[in-house]
């Protein structure tokens, strides 16, 4: 299990390659990368930066527990979570998840499970700062609802 909560940027491609090399028995590797939306896109119109706050005392333990659940539930060779906090800019990777398994279904399901729980149970809060002001990203009802399927 590899978990990093950090302010520093990371290279998702290099992390994917390192993870894949480490789990060479796996066969199937799934990754998810969350990226700050580009200001040039309609969805992100005017976004200048994102500020991510977290709860240092709780973050590591909460994600470790989520990862432990995933490793217990699916036949995973390993799992990786990297999550940034602090100031990020459009196009920056915010976080990534990777899972490795002999079975592609398990790798996909575990990655989705980790994402669903990280979205609603890991103590991070995102604030979007644009030309016209700043706003905290609201939790989506669908994200809370997504937990129901596990």
């Amino acid at each position, binding site marked *: 299990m590899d978990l990093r909560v950090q302010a520093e940027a990371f290279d998702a491609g290099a992390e994917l390659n390192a993870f894949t090399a480490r789990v060479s028995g796996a066969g199937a590797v799934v990754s998810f990368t*969350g990226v700050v939306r580009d200001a040039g896109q309609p969805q992100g119109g005017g976004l200048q930066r994102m500020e991510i*706050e977290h*709860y240092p*005392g*709780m973050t590591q*333990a*909460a994600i470790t527990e989520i990862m432990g659940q995933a490793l217990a539930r699916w036949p995973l060779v390993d799992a990786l979570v990297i*999550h940034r906090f602090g100031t990020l800019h459009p196009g920056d990777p*915010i*976080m990534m998840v990777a899972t490795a398994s002999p079975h592609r279904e398990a790798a996909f399901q575990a990655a989705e499970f980790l*994402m669903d729980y*990280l*979205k*609603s*149970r*890991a*103590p*991070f*809060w*995102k*604030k979007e700062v644009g030309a016209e002001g700043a706003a*905290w*990203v*609201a*939790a989506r009802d669908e994200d*809370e609802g997504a937990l129901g399927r596990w």
Partner: protein
Amino acid sequence: MDLLYFAWVRERIGLPRERVETRAATVAQLIEELKAREPRYAAAFADLNSLRVALDQKLSSFDAPLAGVREVAFFPPMTGG
């Protein structure tokens, strides 16, 4: 007891953490005490549906007892990922 505030809860109350003396038996009672203090607390705790609480770094509920708890954190629903 240490109180921690995150995101817009922190912004409304105006500080990230503070130490309080309380005899509140539950989280809900603690919230009532805080709301009675000042309008900024009343504003932060106006809508409990949009709030979450963690006791000693574990997600909990508003009716949870505070006995033995050292750190209470209030924050909006998390938006990780």
